[in-house]
């Protein structure tokens, strides 16, 4: 199945987007958690503060379905 990952801030470079400036098209098999998928494409989940799908936060153990668009956000700690 196909899912689309977007990323904000610094994560964009790590994600190396292909669809557009933010988005990467990822081919995975069903049943994988977001965490598995991230490790699969070489992104250390520890660098992802949180992720969200249609305006709702989803945990890393969330299992995406075909066509999902999920945005990853980096930790932001500055003040």
């Amino acid at each position, binding site marked *: 199945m196909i899912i689309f990952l977007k990323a*904000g*801030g*610094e994560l964009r470079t790590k994600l190396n987007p292909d669809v557009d400036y933010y988005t990467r098209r990822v081919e995975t098999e069903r049943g994988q958690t977001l965490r598995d998928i991230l490790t699969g494409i070489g992104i*250390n989940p*520890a*660098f*992802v*503060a*949180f992720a*969200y799908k249609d*305006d*709702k*936060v989803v*945990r890393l153990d969330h299992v995406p379905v075909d066509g999902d668009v999920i945005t990853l*956000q*980096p*930790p*932001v*700690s*500055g*003040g």
Partner: protein
Amino acid sequence: MLSDEEKQRYSRQMLIPGWDQERLKQATVLIVGLGGLGCASTLYLAAAGIGRLRLCDGDTVGRSDLNRQTLYSESSIGLFKVDEAGRRIARLNPSIVVEKFKVFVDSQNAGKLAEGCQVIVDGLDNLESRFVLNKESFRQRIPFVYGAVHGWLGYAGVFYAPQTACLACLMHPDIVSRDRVPVAGITPGLIGLIQASEVIKWILGRDTSLLGRLLIYDGTDLSFEIISVGKNPACPVCARA
């Protein structure tokens, strides 16, 4: 009771429907961290007439702060931030009572700092202390107005566990963050002011737009996105069976 000077000073904002200056005057707000975020929120909360501002920061002003920390000037370098901030506020709005704490927040002192506050405002520069404050906000049932920036990216939200999610529901305490982050000076200014407006709405008892939600601001393409942060049933801090 508001004095005539105060009535004059706040006359413009008191025209807003549902505005209750008396409540702002009675309120105590804790602002932890007087960096880019803290300077912005403090400045405007003082101007708006929050009666009692409890400022907490153990740091001194450095030259590299001046690109974003608008309460200070060249002459402040080397002096304690709380003192400089206090001086600035006194000039801006003498009717404000400022309580200064020259400490860095930690699990020991957080409880005392937050005691008796209506709102906790986040002006910190690291995740660890944010989680300390978040815990305290849950323990004392005080809303935690979260804000954080990185480069052009900024987050803001209001957490009021257990009624809403808390910071630990959003991100797990052991994610990797770094210090000396890049910051475009205006980003904390912008986020800080959003925090300030949420603080004021909360004190007025009005609907607080970011309750249990998170604003994600990205300066690179000027996008504002608001997402809802559900409670994490397995949250290490606020989970309720």
